[in-house]
């Protein structure tokens, strides 16, 4: 039975842990075959949302559906169609990598033979064929993450949940996960990924929901969100703290000062032009700088901008 529906729907979902509010009316709609990033700081409710969608946690209120199936009353149908990469490794540490994958394949009811074939295929695809017999507890962090990702793909899920897939990985591990996600999307899988990194959402997602305090603060494409933040930032560290104010006056409007770190932060509309202009202006004014850099806005700044709390940055 094919149901035409969005891949994921959260409608006014609430969840409390012993009175402590984790989700406070979360809304989310994810179209089929798209990548949606849920971006938010620690404690925003990202894991709670993923656990509700993957049937591990029951919502207190609201509607939660995956490809048209209710996560409460049709949990079995949901489980058949999803893959889950949780925030922490969901593997049997004592067993080998191949034993893990083969076991998950059997439990997904592939049957013994197909489970074995599938396990070997995934081990090869994720560069784990040589270490398939080693117990998982002897794996490195990156290997473990790859095996965990392989395990969540055991049945080519329609919808894949990735909860902070690259947190704790080195840049190489991060790049590996990113390329895996990109190749999945080519195959039509819907991906919901959570992250604390704006850059990750930017790199991978078609749409982004920014959440805080268990509700959506802003959503849209990466471009629309960034436009609302005001793009890149320039940071200048002056050598002499007494020159902080005069240096700030030379930079763009909207500069914020941090006297302790002798730091000025200001919006940078065009990266190159802003940098060149700043260097020249400082030189002409005879102000020495220890550091000048143009960078992407941080999650904090996106947050501040989108929640209208700019004023507090200067504090």
């Amino acid at each position: 039975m094919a149901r035409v529906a969005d891949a994921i729907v959260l409608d006014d979902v609430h969840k409390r842990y012993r009175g402590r509010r984790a989700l406070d009316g979360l809304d989310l709609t994810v179209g089929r075959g798209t990548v949606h990033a849920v971006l938010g700081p620690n404690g925003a409710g990202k894991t709670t949302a993923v656990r509700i969608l993957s049937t591990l946690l029951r919502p207190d209120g609201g509607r939660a559906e995956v490809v048209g199936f209710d996560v409460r009353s049709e949990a079995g149908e949901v489980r058949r169609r999803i893959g889950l990469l949780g925030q922490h490794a969901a593997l049997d540490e004592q067993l080998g990598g191949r034993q893990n994958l083969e076991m998950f394949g059997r439990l997904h009811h592939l049957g013994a033979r197909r489970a074995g074939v599938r396990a070997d295929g995934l081990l090869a695809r994720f560069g784990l064929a040589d270490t398939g017999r080693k117990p998982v507890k002897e794996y490195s962090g990156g290997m473990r993450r790859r095996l965990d990702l392989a395990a969540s793909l055991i049945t080519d899920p329609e919808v894949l949940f990735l909860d902070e897939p690259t947190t704790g990985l080195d840049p190489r591990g991060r790049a590996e996960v990113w390329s895996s996600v990109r190749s999945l999307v080519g195959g039509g899988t819907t991906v919901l990924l959570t992250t604390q990194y704006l850059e990750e959402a930017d790199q991978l997602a078609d749409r982004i929901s920014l959440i805080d305090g268990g509700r959506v603060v802003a959503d849209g494409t990466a471009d629309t969100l960034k436009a609302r933040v005001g793009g890149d930032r320039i940071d200048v560290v002056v050598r002499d703290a007494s020159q902080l104010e005069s240096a700030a006056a030379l930079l763009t409007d909207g500069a914020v000062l941090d006297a302790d770190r002798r730091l000025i932060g200001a919006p940078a509309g065009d990266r190159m032009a802003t940098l060149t202009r700043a260097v020249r202006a400082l030189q002409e004014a005879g102000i020495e700088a220890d550091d000048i850099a143009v960078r992407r806005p941080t999650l904090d700044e996106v947050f501040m901008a989108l929640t209208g709390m700019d004023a507090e940055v200067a504090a």
Partner: protein
Amino acid sequence: MSAIGTRAGTGAAGWVLADSWTMTRRELAHWARQPVRIVVGLAFPVMLLLMFTYLVGGGRGVDGDHAEFLVPGMLALTMAFGLEATMLAVTQDLTKGVIDRFRAMPMFSGSVLVGRSVADMLQSVAALAVMTGVGYAVGWRWHNGLTAALGAVGLLLLLRFAMLWTGIQLAMVAGRPEMVQAVQILVWPVGFLSNVFAAPESMPGRLGAVVEWNPMSATVTAVRGLFGNPGGSGGSWAAAHAELLAVAWPVALIAVFFPLAVRRFARIGG
């Protein structure tokens, strides 16, 4: 309820068996990777048996050979102490991330518990085999034929099965490491407030009554009777109906804790 959703999603009842077998294989694979732990697990009750036979000199208040009196009690004690082994295993398992993956899959969720129970029962059969072997070596015998002896083994395994589901439920309700420790300590007085080491008649009145009604004492008395070992009934109602109680107690525990545990497991994580 999520439990119903899970079962409906599992589809054919055949998957209940297939998933249970997969989870049993998981436990056996753990064994294969940790042979030393298996050996230690079997050596501990054997050490207790030898210690009580030779060092402590059990069998106070009863005539006859120490080993003849002690072995049935030690077998029952080993089955009862299985409570903490199961509780520890389930407590550890529940803290593992892999449980989340199991719960997010379209499998029969109870198969995690079935795997645990099959593995624990197999371990207990091995323990009984080793202990009766060692018991034979130190002079213990069965006297009433093979059928009665097998009946005794059946009663022992029934006690273990009851402890198993009690342990699973306890682990889920209060499965923190400090709770497991508390149970590990508490099983000792419960074990000793039985007729394993001494006949109830040799104890002061009220203590004797507690000892006679201890579920473990029923199993011990019944098993002694079936093996034809000394230390039989003391004449009280509980002692006279030991075989009935040795079935009734464990069956009652299983009837209470089995459904509770299965239901609770399906709802973990709320």
